[in-house]
């Protein structure tokens, strides 16, 4: 009974090791009394954090190929500071996804926010901070609109946000006159996007802040429970008193807000806006969320998303450094392969969990302490 309460052991190496670790410890009861060493070992198996292993693999391979350029602080700075906007968008995608709603407008929401920041800077006397605030509010309004279409008009979120996305693109084209705009932000504003704090790009801290907040809400508050319950079984959640319509609507609004923030961060970093900016961000963000969903918990989660993104980003960076022609083709190739692999992995966890649970039960019937010896699911 005690043994099977430890965190899932899906991988043979960790399970075997943890089994022997337990032999020296007295039996305990409950998940949280499971020996720390075993919990850690079970937690770092390759099936739970494959992206970390991927990351290490890339680091080894590409530093062998590019010994002078790959494992340098410049590479890290580049990848991290470039990745912040995409990661923010991935987090924005993650919130409605937890409630089983797709927000495909994240790319164009970000473009709207960026476009507004730049346009307001060029055409009005508004201070940059006020422009940024307006841009975020506009994105919140767009998210609320998507939510209205999904909840009130009962349109599938996939279609609703695809529609919203095109409407946003139209707005963006209208703003920019389909040409590139270059803002003249004050230096103080630009510094917010380009400064370094203790050798780390300042924008990384924004991402960290949003991630911690989102992780807290998703994993440690009733709101997070409501989101995942709505995503898992909307009917059951509703009949249990979860206001599922509000949950979906709210998730799309939150998604809009974070996309707005991503656009503001973008404007701080470059101050250049072109109407083709947005759509390119959709794919990497979505790929990161889906690959991330196979990490740690077998459902969309914040840290899995970030790790998945950065593992891929380092791979792409390594490829780019290794090839002479700049290898523009490497990024979409990487993302495409990663997404397919991620989703094919992500469709397994429930089956795996069931199998694991059954194996646990069967073994318990025979010999309670035999559980760790079972083969991986």
């Amino acid at each position: 009974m005690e043994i099977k309460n430890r965190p899932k052991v899906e991988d043979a190496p960790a399970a075997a090791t943890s089994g022997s670790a337990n032999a020296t410890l007295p039996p305990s009861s409950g998940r949280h009394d499971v020996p720390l060493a075993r919990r850690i070992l079970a937690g770092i198996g390759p099936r739970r954090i494959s992206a970390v292993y991927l990351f290490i693999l890339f680091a080894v391979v590409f530093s062998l190929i590019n010994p002078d350029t790959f494992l340098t602080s410049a590479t890290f700075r580049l990848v991290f500071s470039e990745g912040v906007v995409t990661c923010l968008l991935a987090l924005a995608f993650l919130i409605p996804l937890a409630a089983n709603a797709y927000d495909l407008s994240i790319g164009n929401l970000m473009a709207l926010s960026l476009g507004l920041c730049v346009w307001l800077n060029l055409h009005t006397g508004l201070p940059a901070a006020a422009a940024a605030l307006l841009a975020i509010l506009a994105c919140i309004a767009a998210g609320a609109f998507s939510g209205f279409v999904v909840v009130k008009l009962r349109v599938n979120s996939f279609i609703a946000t695809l529609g919203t996305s095109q409407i946003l693109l139209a707005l963006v084209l209208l703003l920019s006159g389909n040409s590139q705009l270059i803002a003249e932000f004050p230096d103080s504003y630009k510094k917010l996007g380009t400064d370094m704090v203790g050798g780390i790009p300042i924008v990384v801290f924004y991402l960290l802040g949003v991630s911690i907040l989102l992780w807290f809400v998703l994993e440690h508050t009733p709101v997070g429970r409501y989101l995942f319950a709505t995503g898992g079984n909307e009917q059951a959640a509703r009949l249990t008193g979860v206001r599922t319509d509000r949950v979906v609507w709210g998730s799309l609004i939150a998604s809009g807000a974070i996309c707005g923030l991503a656009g503001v961060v973008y404007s701080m970093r470059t101050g250049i806006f072109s109407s083709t900016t947005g759509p390119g961000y959709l794919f990497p963000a979505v790929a990161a969320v889906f690959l991330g969903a196979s990490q740690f918990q077998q459902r969309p989660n914040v840290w899995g998303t970030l790790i998945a993104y950065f593992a891929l980003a380092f791979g792409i960076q390594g490829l780019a450094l290794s090839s002479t022609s700049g290898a523009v083709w490497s990024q979409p190739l990487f993302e495409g392969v990663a997404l397919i692999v991620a989703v094919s992995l992500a469709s397994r966890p429930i089956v795996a969990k069931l199998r694991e649970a059954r194996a646990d039960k069967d073994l318990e019937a025979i010999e309670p302490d035999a559980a760790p010896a079972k083969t991986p699911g």
Partner: protein
Amino acid sequence: MPLLEIRDMSKTFPGTRALDRVDLDISAGEVHALVGQNGSGKSTLIKVLAGFYEPDPGTVVRVDGEEVELNDSAASRAAGFRFVHQDLALVDELSVVENLALGRGFQTGAMGRIRWREERRAAQAMLDSLGFDFDARKPLGSLAAAERTGVAIARAMWDWEDGGARILVLDEPTATLPMAEVETLFRTVRRVRERGLGVIYVSHRLDEVFSIGDRISILRDGKKVGTYKTSELDEDKLIALMVGGAVTRAAGEKAAPGGAPVLTVEGLCGTVLRGLSFEAKAGQVLGFAGLTGSGREELLPLIFGAGERLGTVEVEGRKVKAAKPQSAIDAGIALVPADRLHQGGVFDMSVSQNLTLTDPGRLTGPAKAILPGRERSEVRDWIGRLDVRPNSPDLPLAALSGGNQQKIVIAKWLRMSPRVLLLDEPTQGVDVGAKAMIHALVREAAAAGAAVVVASGDDEEICDICDHVYVLRDGEIVGELSQEQMSIDEVGRMQLAGRVHAGA
């Protein structure tokens, strides 16, 4: 010579004999009604004919005097059996013509082009011959319920003229049909009979059996009780034959007297229910019995406000809004739904999170964070109290057995200390041990002062746990029984007849 002869049909499952040497004759041009209570062997017999179950050795089935082997569904089809089940297996989005071609294939011309004109003409002719005049090009979804059943019948007997379809089996065809459309269906069935097919008509509704059946065969506990001409029977005789000498249960403990009314339902209407009114009292377990289609299935979800409804629901004088489960929950109502898979729980969430989903806010500390310690101790409490196995709060709910899942679904409501506890088929798909535990929980909840309402198709369950029972039929309360009057026999009788009143 009868069209279909069944001799010595038996079917044994491990531990039970579902069919025991049943003989049955069906003539061409006859509607033969097959009746029996739940578990009498009707559906087993149909599944054997469909080639779904292999009968025990010694079973003989002859069609037109020739013995047929019913090894699989293809063999059953080749022998001339056609089935229309409750679930019609039609596609709403397709047209009637397309639905009729499902499973049969289209007539095609050059380059595989479908000969739409011929298809349409044939479809229309078939529908005409069954007495329907709607356009076969219409999408199926736009048809009335009886018309859809008509399409399913047309599809089943499509090749009767070529000698393909011989025996049409209609399995509870009216269970989901509004009363007004039943006559339309009967007209169709009579046309099928005129074509010389044999019709086996399975139904719970005795009035239908009498109006459409030429002969009636009764099954009870896997044996055939007899075959009668419809004119030889009346409803009372038929019920007596169906129920037989069912053992009346000895009354158990004293019925709880019941306190003040807590739940007041007035004029409740749904698809089947017609103006239902009743009160549920604190401390009492109130039961609703009824056959499938009697309105029993929709009663509790309607009270809870899962969907739209007519009529009022009040808890201690406080009105509960329709289609807003949250309003019902705020008023102190809890619903344990019949469809556990789709409505009971979130199966890939953990046992613990399912249990606390009713009100996670109660577990929060500063910054609205759920305190893991508080959650764990509450969940452990419930798991211990309800003897949930395995005792692992972090497993996904899907990993538990049906009985243990149901305990969690009930526990998530018990933690809310509901004023009104609604349980729909509380022990469906649940093992014996969990069933006893759930029954004990239900009694306990009532003893603690809740008004408990149980809707169940399991008459034994109703008699076991209820202090008072209402019997539903055709959307109305047709009788009530106090605990002293209650017996499986009596509850079953009232569901069928619907006019035998308590004490009469």
